[in-house]
């Protein structure tokens, strides 16, 4: 059932591209703002690049997460999903993994302009960075799906979502920036492994919380 739900999420998004386009457009706009509002000194940009990257990811994700339940809301397909014999936790997992994939896709598309516009040097190795980004995405989207599910039926949902999301993901944001800094600036792993542990703990806690509480968030 999880695979069916995940396939449906990906297929629906492929068809209308609401989540991906909103995240991509906003991400590139934010990147432009970063480029012009900083001094333009590549040395300074190199120092703060991890922080800029995760700020961009968090800001873009809030827009995408707001539309994560968009297709279900418009024609009340959500009612059909809820009344079907599907475990609500599995529904959360499908939203979580699909949201993670959409965010990862955006990061792949934005990373080249990110390096170009800020005049950054290429990293020495890619895989640790990719791992950190994937772990960070899982954490952001886990909380994002919970918060998006609550904001879906609320008034001022576009404002409510970031107001709820950003403070909750603060420890994850700090850990992501620290771990990315350690990787990008070639600091020994033993120095920043603590931050990877924080990220992993965050993902486990909020992934479990989402699985357990989604039942209570989805009903009217």
């Amino acid at each position, binding site marked *: 059932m999880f695979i069916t739900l995940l396939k449906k999420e990906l297929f629906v998004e492929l068809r209308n591209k609401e989540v991906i386009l909103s995240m991509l457009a906003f991400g590139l706009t934010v990147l432009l703002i970063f480029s012009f509002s900083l001094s333009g000194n590549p040395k300074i940009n190199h120092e703060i690049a991890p922080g800029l990257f995760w700020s961009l990811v968090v800001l873009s994700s809030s827009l995408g997460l707001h539309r994560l339940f968009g297709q279900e809301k418009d024609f009340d397909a959500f009612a059909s999903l809820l009344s079907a014999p599907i475990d609500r936790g599995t529904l959360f997992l499908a939203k979580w993994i699909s949201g993670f994939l959409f965010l990862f896709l955006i990061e792949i598309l934005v990373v080249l302009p990110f390096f170009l516009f800020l005049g950054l040097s290429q990293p020495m190795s890619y895989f640790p960075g990719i791992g950190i980004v994937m772990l960070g995405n899982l954490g952001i989207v886990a*909380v994002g799906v*919970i918060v998006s599910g*609550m904001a879906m*039926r*609320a*008034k*001022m949902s576009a*404002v*409510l979502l970031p*107001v*709820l999301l*950003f*403070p*909750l993901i*603060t*420890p*994850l944001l*700090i*850990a992501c920036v*620290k771990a990315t800094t350690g990787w990008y600036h070639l600091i020994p792993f033993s120095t920043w492994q*603590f*931050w990877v542990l*924080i990220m992993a*703990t*965050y993902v486990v*806690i*909020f992934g479990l*919380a989402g699985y357990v*509480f989604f039942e*209570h*968030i989805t*009903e*009217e």
Partner: protein
Amino acid sequence: MSFLFQERFLRILFIVSVILMAVNLYAIFFIAPMVPEQHWAQKIFYVHVPIAWSSFLSYFIVMVSGILFFIKKDSYWDRVGLAAAEIGTLFVTLVLITGPIWATPIWGKPWIWEPRLTTTLILFLIYIGYFMLRKFGGHPERVARYAAVLGILAFLDVPLIFYSVKFWAPQYQLHPQVEMNQQPDEILLPFFFSMFTFTILYILMLRFRVKISNFQYKLKTKNV
């Protein structure tokens, strides 16, 4: 007002709170010694830390109320959660005000991202979202569930927030630590008395607020 004092326990608790607070204030100003170099600014310590403790206690009660709301399926626990969230946020606001007041003469700067104060700030922001969710989340019966979930998530987040902030930028977060086990009895005794007094005050405020909330609920559901 008289409605709040109909209950004997609340009447006694109110009188005990007033007496304790009067004694507490006397102890802070006239019994606790003046700490060299910090003078009157250090006295905030006797208020700032107990209020901070009470606010964390309050947010813990929000979490417990949320769990009990789901287990017992009783809206009473939603009202307890809301009351605890309100008082907790009030106390957190006071912590964020008294902290910089204490910090300015002691650290030379009102704000230096001290881990506990920063954790308090983040919790304050989470609860801004909590009250927005309460206001805009929809009908109260649904919002009760959302608030319970958010209250649980917020408290689960606290240790993660604290440890991530603690190790975030220690070179910029240095400040004089108050090592409790090195303090003399003349400071410790008034301090623990103040902790006790503020805890009693918190319980009183929570009981009052829940009582008002229960009555409002009865009025709204016409069960008076």
